[in-house]
């Protein structure tokens, strides 16, 4: 029977994922997701699904591709000057591990600073990663980010949480 992954391995994976975002290593980051992997930032608390209610972001591989292609585009006005981020990830807890599917559900909390053109925004929330075990590492089937202020009147958010 498969054993639950070590907390430290999960932490290191989450740190690695966050670092790829901060360092804008977009292709590597996208590759962390499974083919059907989803990235979701609900627009309300306890939002049941992303199909019947608007979200701040709800991206499958296709939309991630669009965004990742858009990032380097010279005429993407809102990305010139370039926005930068730093993610501080903590409170990593393993909520469940299914020995059969070897799927881990991991809960963590984060603060992310998004900086662009002399303005810095502070975001924070709880993240749920649904991770498939792949060899020594993991792939993301779902990354759900519950912002503490998901229903606030927000300015442009241009970097993944």
């Amino acid at each position, binding site marked *: 029977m498969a054993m639950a992954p070590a907390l430290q391995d999960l932490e290191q994976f989450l740190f690695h994922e966050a670092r790829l975002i901060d360092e804008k290593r977009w292709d590597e980051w996208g590759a962390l997701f499974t083919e059907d992997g989803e990235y979701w930032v609900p627009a309300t608390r306890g939002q049941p699904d992303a*199909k*019947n209610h608007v*979200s701040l972001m709800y991206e499958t591989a296709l939309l991630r591709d669009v965004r990742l*292609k*858009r990032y380097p*585009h010279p*005429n*993407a006005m809102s990305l010139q000057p370039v926005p930068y981020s730093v993610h501080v990830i903590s409170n990593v807890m393993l909520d469940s591990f299914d020995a059969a599917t070897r799927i881990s559900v991991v809960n963590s909390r984060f603060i992310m600073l998004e900086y662009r053109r002399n303005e810095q925004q502070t975001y924070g929330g709880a993240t749920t990663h649904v991770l498939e075990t792949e060899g020594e590492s993991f792939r993301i089937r779902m990354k759900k980010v519950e912002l503490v202020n998901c229903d606030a009147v927000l300015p442009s*958010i241009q970097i993944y949480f």
Partner: protein
Amino acid sequence: MTWSSERLSSLVRHDAVDRQVYTDPELFALEMERIWGRAWVYIGHESQIPEPGSFFTTELARQPVLLVRQDKDTYHLFFNRCAHKGAKVVELESGRAPMLRCGYHGWTYRTDGVCHHITGGDAAYRALGLDKGSPCMNLSTVPRAESYRGFVFASLTPDAPDLATWLGPTAASIDNMIDRSPEGRLEVAGGALRYHHDSNWKFFMENLNDMMHAMIAHESSAHAARQLGKKMLARGGALPPEIQILAPFAEDPDFFEKMGVHAFANGHSYSGGKTSIHASYSGIPEYEAALERAHGKERMDEILSLNRHNTVVYPSFTCKGAIQTIRVVKPVAVDETIIESWTFRLVGAPDELLQRSILYCNLINSSANLVGPDDREAYHRLQQGLQAQGERWVSNARYVDAEEPNEEGGRSATGSSDMVFRNQFEAWRRYMTADTASGG
């Protein structure tokens, strides 16, 4: 130096406006009083207050207001302000309650605004002949509130013209959105998005029918979508809705010229009509079957072939019939604006339609979307650029000569014409310089 009518008039030329209309805080304050205080301003949709006691709170010209349903046929728009000491009575955005209760001293009001309970008793006011039910003890009502087929607008001006008249031909855009329901009914569904903009509200209102910016400002996302779309087609796949939504933003200028723009009284306008960036969404058979059942083939085709892009009801409202979404403008300061977006369910239609509207809003209207940030950045750069005093005038000169009357009683022009902006500023000047409140 105060803003006399003459001075205000001189800010608007037929082919240009003074940059200060976007940058001067005093002018913004006057706009709140004379434009937002005189025009019909969108409040909400009747489906947001479905039951007796259902309420919905929002702002009208930066003042807190409260929409409450009294019974099946009656609802009221009140200033959200307690008759006792003036506290905001209802703090939640929406909900339902048998009585409206002020949290400070516990006065309660019936859903018709009449005071029901006074903590400490009513005797206290007898000396002045006041009691529950005396006007000054009740919630005060906003001078005018009317619904156009479920869309509630309000005006702070008692003698504003009737709403339908004031909407003019833009009412047809609302009609079309409703007609797309097999049952002829809409319901707000899917929640709201609120997007903060660090710029003047008029930039957004102009951008809606600015046909020359999409292929430039939205190139990055739209081209990415097109490339991915090509690959999919090459692989023999169909275009997923995400691509159908994003790709048209990169249509060439000609496409947008052909869409055309149409301007009407009171600063209203729409673009598109025969076609728009929504025209080539793939059909939903089950839906069309339902619609045909309801209206017959001919009427259905008529309804679905009406393809308006953005309809602008100046100064506060814009809608997209083709995907059942509206956006609402909430000015905060001369350089600060909140844009809300709402989606509607076509009653009697399959869920796919609402889901497509929701997808559209996620992609175009959310704070983290793939298109809106570039518009927001454009407005930001306008706000910054217009700090420059090197040139007083902001040009509205495109095709100043080439407007033609249309059969709806307005004027039409090629997509890239500045006609729509000229038309908005004609209304702007009239509202701002009218001495009476008959701003409408």
